[in-house]
């Protein structure tokens, strides 16, 4: 909590989405989304464009009416409540700062609507500017600020009236990579300072992994999986999540049996063990997934942990990318795999056409 004195003790709102649906013409933009967002949580709605994440946010904000389902904030349904009564902060894509008002007037706008007296308003605006590291910028107009500064003004304006919930719609999308990374950390700090609930929409998986307490991955208007960044990365429950978050290798396999919670499967004559949430039947055709950076060449110096899964492959491509080497490999049945190895001057690069054995941990093998 900074010296700015912004709402440090206040807790965030809890938000419940119950079977939320939004239909446009005949297309279900949002198709039965149920989600419990906890008080004070940083939750990200992550998905490709058209996945329904922005429509969901717009319904929470009150700009779109759900076709079916309910939205509760702190246990009270807000579906019938107009947006200007919901008391929710919102940061828009491209910021939506009022071009005819100064920075000060922009940030003071929500306070003016709430009848806050002028002197009090000036004090709160100054505090908000300090919170986003822009003191002294009050008299400027939005067009006189850089993209990053405009973004901060938009955040200041959205939190100055101390809402318990802040919605953000791809707020960093228009900024360059360096600035985006800085602002990601700043958003996290802001979230910790304010202690309010953040719902953040993005299509950028790295952004989601860096910032969120939990991520809800959306696809085709549905929530594909909800969980912490580690959950989603290490234990994706379906092929879409495994492919959308990070890079994944997919191995077709046939289930041969179970050893406690571990599935024993056969992949073109090789036995592979995998973690699995359900209990597939013997003989089922399944897909196993692993992350490229969790595969190792068995004879490599990096290979410290005892390997549990092994596979013979041929190197088909080798690319040096600075911090790591990226290898394209081909298994006996023609399945392509990607392996990422941390680079080192002490390790000799593998040649194309070289045969090798790769190995990886059972914990890093998921049945999806």
């Amino acid at each position, binding site marked *: 909590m900074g010296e700015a004195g912004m709402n440090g003790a206040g807790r965030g709102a809890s938000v419940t989405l119950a079977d939320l649906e939004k239909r446009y013409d005949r297309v279900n933009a949002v198709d039965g989304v149920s989600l419990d967002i906890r008080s004070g949580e940083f939750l990200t709605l992550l998905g490709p464009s058209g996945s329904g994440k922005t429509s969901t946010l717009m319904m929470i*904000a*009150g700009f779109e009416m759900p076709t079916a389902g309910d939205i509760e904030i702190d246990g009270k349904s807000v579906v019938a409540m107009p*947006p200007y*009564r919901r008391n929710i902060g*919102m940061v828009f894509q*491209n910021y939506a700062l*009022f071009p005819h008002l100064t920075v000060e007037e922009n940030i003071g*706008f*929500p306070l003016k609507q709430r009848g806050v007296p002028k002197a009090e308003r000036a004090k709160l605006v100054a505090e908000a500017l300090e919170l986003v590291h822009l003191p002294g910028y009050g008299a400027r107009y939005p067009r006189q600020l850089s993209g990053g500064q405009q973004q901060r003004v938009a955040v200041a304006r959205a939190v100055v009236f101390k809402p318990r919930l802040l919605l953000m719609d791809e707020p960093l999308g228009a900024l360059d990579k360096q600035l985006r990374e800085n602002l990601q950390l700043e958003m996290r700090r802001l979230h910790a300072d304010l202690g309010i609930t953040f719902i953040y929409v993005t299509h950028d998986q790295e952004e989601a992994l860096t910032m969120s307490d939990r991520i809800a991955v959306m696809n085709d208007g549905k929530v594909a999986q909800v969980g912490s960044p580690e959950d989603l990365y290490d234990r994706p429950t379906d092929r879409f999540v495994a492919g959308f978050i990070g890079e994944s290798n997919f191995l077709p396999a046939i289930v041969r049996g179970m050893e406690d919670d571990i599935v024993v499967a056969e992949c073109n004559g090789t036995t592979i063990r995998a973690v699995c949430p359900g209990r597939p039947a013997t003989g089922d055709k399944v897909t196993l997934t692993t992350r490229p950076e969790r595969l190792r060449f068995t004879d490599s110096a990096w290979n410290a942990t005892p390997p549990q899964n092994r596979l013979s492959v041929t190197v088909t491509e080798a690319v040096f990318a600075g911090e790591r080497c990226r290898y394209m490999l081909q298994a006996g049945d023609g399945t392509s795999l990607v392996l990422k190895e941390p680079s080192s001057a002490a390790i000799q690069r593998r040649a194309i056409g070289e045969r090798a054995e790769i190995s990886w941990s059972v914990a890093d093998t998921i049945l999806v």
Partner: protein
Amino acid sequence: MILTRLLPASVVGLILFFLAFPIVVVAIVSFSEATYLTFPPPAFGLRWYQAYFSSADWLKPTWVSLWVAAAVVVLATFLGTLAALGVSRLSRPMRIFATGLILSPMIVPGIVVAIGIYYAYSRYGLVGTPIAMVLAHTCLAVPFVVTSVTASLAGLDPRLEQASLSLGATPGATFWQVTLPLIRPGVLVGALFAFITSFDELIVALFISGTGAVTLPRRMWDDLRFQIDPTIAAVSTLTIVLTAALMGCAHILRKRNQA
């Protein structure tokens, strides 16, 4: 080389001369000292401006025109702005239909509109009253306001209104504090066009101004028919100056809107 450069320049020069020549002639004649319309004038002076400003026959229609135009500005700007806002919120097919209706006074030949207005208004005994002039000119001016405000609205990011609502402003407060300030240049340009539309309108005035609401263009028309005296050149020049000044304002406003 020289020919390819000079040819377009001289063509443009000819066109400009063709367009501006009548205006220039009128302006020159208005400073004539002669008692009849002749070009070029034998001597220069302000005699006909003096005649204009000291003649009740000319000043009265001028006041009628100014008052009518002022009333039209208020009415047409109000109605036109509301219409543009309403139309912008319609679905696409409805929008095209409504826009067509609103713009019809601008598209239909002036004489047809005038005849229609004449028949409609004479039924209610309005012909020859200033109210009739205001109403009829408002019909003609609203399309200009709608066109201008619609262009401003098209450039307005809908997220600004959403942002305003999310920050706790009611729809009314959003209109006054966000929407209206942002489309204000379009509204003002529309108002200027409404003024000009009414101020130099003749055809409808011929039909419905009667004897009770003679406007300046109507007075000029009558003057030309019954006598020819250079006062009309002075009046024309003053009208040209006023209209040009208003168009200049409109241009500056548009420029500022784009910046």
